[in-house]
């Protein structure tokens, strides 16, 4: 079991060690799990790299905007759909409308054509809007609404003259903070880790989010998209700098995931164990 844990961690530790080593030992492949010629030079260079910072900024924007838009839409819809079929005529139709998106999709090429034809190419909306409605998250939210909000509370508010909007804002949202936090975190992780949409919808590499930037630099080893001069090229292609970039991109997840873990376990149970 210790071996399995080690195997899971070892690539990460190795990359961290490489990123903290001098470039000579890294190029000579003598770095194992501990840095050789310790230096934070690679991090200084990465954080001084304008392209990297710009990509980081795009990613931060994307995560914030994407989470707000997605949660706004999902919460409103989940509130309405958490009502019973009798109370909300047409609920079934809406429900199937959303569930069907989990079963079938148009596929890559038609989606690409729709998004670009709407003129969203090279804009952050191409990354935020298409994945905004996640039917699975919506179902988790509405199940939470159904099981956690006391019906009597709602009814007494209604008798006191509150309408749906008021009940939604003043009763449902405050009671559901844990669920909202959980699904928001799901959404943030999704947006932080996404890279493919950044690659296909942006013709201008300056709009790449961080993971897409990393993908072209580290995985494809393709520098043609990113306008770099010879000096920067040397820096980018250096093993220690690449390791530092990988590590910085992984860092937010490494920091939040121990907290996330608990939420996710609950989320899984919430999603799997009904009735």
């Amino acid at each position, binding site marked *: *079991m*210790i071996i*399995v*844990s080690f195997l*899971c*961690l070892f*690539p*990460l530790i*190795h*990359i961290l060690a490489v990123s903290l080593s001098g470039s000579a030992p890294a190029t000579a492949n003598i770095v194992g799990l501990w840095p050789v010629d310790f230096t934070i030079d690679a991090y200084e260079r990465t954080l001084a790299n304008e392209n990297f910072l710009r990509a980081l900024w795009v990613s931060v924007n994307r995560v914030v905007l994407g989470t707000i838009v997605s949660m706004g*839409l999902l919460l*409103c*819809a989940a*509130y309405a759909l958490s*009502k019973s079929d*009798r*109370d*909300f005529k047409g609920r079934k139709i*809406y429900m199937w*409308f*959303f569930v069907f*998106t989990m*079963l*079938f*999709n*148009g*596929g*890559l*090429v*038609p*989606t690409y*054509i729709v*998004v670009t034809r*709407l003129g969203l190419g090279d804009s952050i909306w191409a990354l935020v*809007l298409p994945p905004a409605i996640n039917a699975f998250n919506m*179902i988790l939210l*509405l199940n939470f609404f159904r099981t956690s909000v006391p019906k009597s509370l709602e009814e007494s508010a209604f008798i006191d003259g509150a*309408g*749906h909007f008021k009940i*939604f804002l003043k009763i449902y949202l405050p009671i559901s903070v844990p669920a909202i936090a959980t699904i928001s975190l799901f959404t943030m*992780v999704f947006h*932080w*880790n996404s890279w*493919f949409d950044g690659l296909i919808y942006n013709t201008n590499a300056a709009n790449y989010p961080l*993971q897409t930037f*990393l993908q072209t630099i*580290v*995985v494809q080893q393709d520098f043609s998209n990113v306008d770099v001069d010879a000096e920067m090229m040397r820096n980018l292609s250096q*093993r220690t700098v*690449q390791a530092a970039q*990988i590590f910085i991109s992984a860092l937010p*997840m*490494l920091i939040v995931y121990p907290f996330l873990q608990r939420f*996710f*376990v609950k989320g*899984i*149970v919430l999603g*799997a164990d*009904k*009735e």
Partner: protein
Amino acid sequence: MAKPKSKPSSPQRWDFKQTWPLHVLVWPAVIVALVFQYGPMFGIVMAFQDYRPWLGFLGSEWVGFKHFITMFEYDYARQVIWNTLVISVLKLVFGLIVPLAFALLLNEVYHMKFKRTVQTIVYLPYFLSWVILGGMLIDILSPTGGIINQFLGIFGIDPIFFLGSNDWFRTTVVISDLWKETGFNTIVFLAAITVVNPNLYEAAVVDGANRWKQTWHITLPSMRPIIIVVATLSLGNILNAGFDQIFNLYNPLVYQTGDIIDTYVYRVGLVSGDFSYGTAVGLFKSFIGLILIVLGYHLAYRYANWRIF
């Protein structure tokens, strides 16, 4: 849904005649889904046309099933479908067995702190993107000085080009997939173990069952529903061999064994700009996927009483 029915005769019954606010709340989400989920579904007509962007959907020529016929007659396309099936079946089998075995082992650990630490560590790669994991793998698996090959070198094994050899690519894909996903599935199974009725174990101990017998006769049968659910629901993913992973690991050297439907669609559809053919291949995949998902949901409901909402 187990939901108490509100009593219709109750004098305080909530009058829901005015449901317009509910419609108002649903519509923004409906519109976004209509545009970005359903819009592309209508775009599927491209698969039956020779789509030319400047002519649009209305102007392009209709060609019926031409692109589908091309796909089935083209050896390379068949190879791609085969690769997809092989890779995802391997992933499905190992992705079920390894986490299950690991969860059973972890369940035997009584040192709670140790157990939780192992769980946390194994779960970690799940949160990292395939771009990050791909970047790491490319570094550590490099045939020229990657740390894995250096390690193998100690035993006198020649460097292996894991990501560039058709003999090794699938193995590498399956193992790296286990690296990322095992933690997640282990937690699903561990959650299932915790709900097993402890009385059963006590009774078994009285009857003289050892740990192994308890696992075999109590734990595993109790987990049958969750195993069935996980297995049947993965059925719908049988044509998703993992685009993110393959895309970040493969290269032209391993197209023969590693090119899957999704990566193929990306290359012919978007890179080469053969929109119609790409859509046709994608539609074939989505359509089979739809059938398998519905089948999977049906089986999961039938054998494990699981339902989506």
